[in-house]
């Protein structure tokens, strides 16, 4: 018999999991890039990897304190954004797409190679960088919570901190998108030549947007590694695609979209794979193995991306009025 309570409880936990927070933040960064500025950044996985490795290497190899490690990660992603942006932001949109996807792969391959194993841990990745972060935890030891949300002090600390960052940055994004800066950014998305003809330095604004959204991705990368290890295989192109799926699900040019999109994405995915996997176990789907059940959700994500783009391009939170004019 299927343990429905377990399936629902696992799914509910995804609502506030640090992974959900990390994806929400990465998607928020992409919302700045793609939704607001119209930049096709397919290298968000690279920005996340820089956050993860920037933090972990700073702590492990250089013994930096938490704040300095965070700054190193941010600094690395600013440099990365500049390297990506300088050659491509003057070119047509699809060039940025190709360069960002290539650059993210370059980063991943460099983090994976045996050549720099001493620093990156190559394919095995890195571990043991969480001590200084855990030491900042003001929550006394113990297990707290209610219902399905029972966690120890470290897990709560992680969740509280992760979601605080998400909320703060969402507020910041909301603020700047209502400002004249946001107006220029949205204007660039619509037609950059028109904005240029009005005396705005389009190149500089696109660069600012690329850096800002990239830094969000970097912070997301740091939140992402706090409940797990740094493993280079996590930062594949498909990571970027999942973040895009979340963004499109919620609505590309919205603030709440990426956050709620991430929650829906993870809750549904957990529910779905929990259900399928237990259904296979219970013999309800005799033609399927456990392994195949695991793959089914990737197929589902792919199909979902297609359907959303075709039938609801503005996402869940997108303005309905926009739909009539979506290009």
């Amino acid at each position, binding site marked *: 018999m299927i343990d429905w309570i377990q399936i629902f409880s696992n799914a509910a936990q995804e609502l506030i999991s640090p992974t959900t927070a990390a994806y929400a933040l990465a998607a928020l960064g992409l919302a700045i890039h793609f939704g607001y500025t119209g930049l096709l950044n397919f290298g968000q996985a690279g920005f996340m990897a820089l956050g993860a490795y920037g933090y972990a290497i700073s702590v492990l190899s250089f013994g930096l304190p938490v704040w300095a490690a965070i700054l190193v990660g941010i600094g690395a992603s600013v440099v990365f954004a500049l390297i990506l942006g300088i050659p491509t932001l003057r070119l047509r949109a699809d060039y940025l797409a190709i360069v960002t996807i290539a650059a993210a792969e370059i980063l991943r391959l460099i983090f994976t190679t045996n050549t720099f194993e001493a620093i990156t841990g190559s394919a095995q990745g890195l571990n043991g960088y969480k001590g200084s972060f855990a030491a900042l935890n003001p929550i006394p030891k113990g297990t707290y919570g209610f219902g399905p949300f029972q966690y120890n002090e470290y897990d709560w600390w992680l969740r509280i901190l992760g979601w605080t960052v998400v909320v703060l940055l969402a507020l910041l994004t909301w603020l700047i998108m209502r400002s004249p800066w946001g107006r220029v950014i949205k204007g660039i998305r619509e037609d950059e030549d028109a904005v240029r003809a*009005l005396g705005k*330095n389009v190149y500089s604004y696109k660069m600012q947007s690329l850096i800002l959204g990239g830094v969000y991705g970097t912070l997301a990368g740091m939140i992402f590694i706090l409940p797990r290890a740094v493993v280079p295989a996590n930062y594949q192109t498909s990571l970027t695609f999942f973040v895009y799926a979340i963004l499109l699900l919620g609505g590309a040019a919205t603030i709440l979209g990426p956050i709620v999109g991430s929650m829906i994405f993870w809750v549904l995915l957990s529910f779905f794979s929990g259900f399928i996997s237990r259904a296979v176990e219970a013999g309800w789907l005799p033609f399927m193995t456990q392994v195949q059940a695991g793959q089914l959700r990737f197929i589902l994500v792919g199909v979902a991306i297609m359907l959303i783009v075709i039938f609801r391009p503005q996402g869940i939170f997108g303005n309905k009025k926009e739909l009539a004019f979506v290009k």
Partner: protein
Amino acid sequence: MSSEVTPTSKPVKTTGLHIGEAEPGCRKVDPILIADGVTRTFGGLKAVDVDHVEIPRGAITALIGPNGAGKTTFFNLLTGFDKPDTGKWEFDGRSLAHVPAYRVARMGLIRTFQLTKALGLLSVLDNMKLGAKDQSGENLFRAMFPFLWRKQEEEIESKAVELLTRFKLDAKQTDYAASLSGGQRKLLEMARALMSDPTLVMLDEPMAGVNPALTQSLLDHILDLKSQGMTVLFVEHDMHMVRHIADWVVVMAEGRIVAEGDPYTVMENPAVIDAYLGAHHDSDLGVTDTEHVEAIKELIDDEQ
């Protein structure tokens, strides 16, 4: 299309703009824009090859010529949207060579586009506000603190509403620009250009695709610009409109300036007829032959 429409009041023509003969490249009493030896080739084809041209200040100048004459390319070169192979050009005494488009705009030279570039998913009001210069809230760091820019924003908004009212778009200010008609978008684009108080307004085919009902008000607005002390340079196909509102006409063909003059005399210039009908027309036809001018007009109307 708009052939039968005339401005509501008879426009006051500015005269005495040039020095010496009205010939291609002639000097002007008070030029605002001077181009020298500007050339641009596309794959071996010379799209623009302008030896010398001066645009008079405080007047309405029309840039006409058959399709493919290089008018829009010349516009793009002047405004920094394209880079010429050679040449120098200056605006108000300041060189514009190698100046990026956004800086050209900041100097007070604002252009519009042949295909309107209304920012579809921005509201009409936001479109207008984007046009304002020197907004402190356009800096990313100041943008985070609304109290730093709120006051300026209010000033910009009242100016935008005022302009929208003048262009009769105030009822639509909260709508997406994408919901406007073609003519309304042209109006919006012109109004948006005025938000920055430009000294020279360059309009690329302001009448193209505009509903005849709106043509008149567009013409009035262009004349209005002049009365407010702005200089206007526009590309247009409609000869009637050119004749009615232009003080000076520059004719381009095959990338070169082939004639200049006031709108009445320039139409009779053989070079202009050459440009429109091809170089091998029957030379027996008198240049004053009104039928010939009619033929030109028809030809032009056909083009649209």
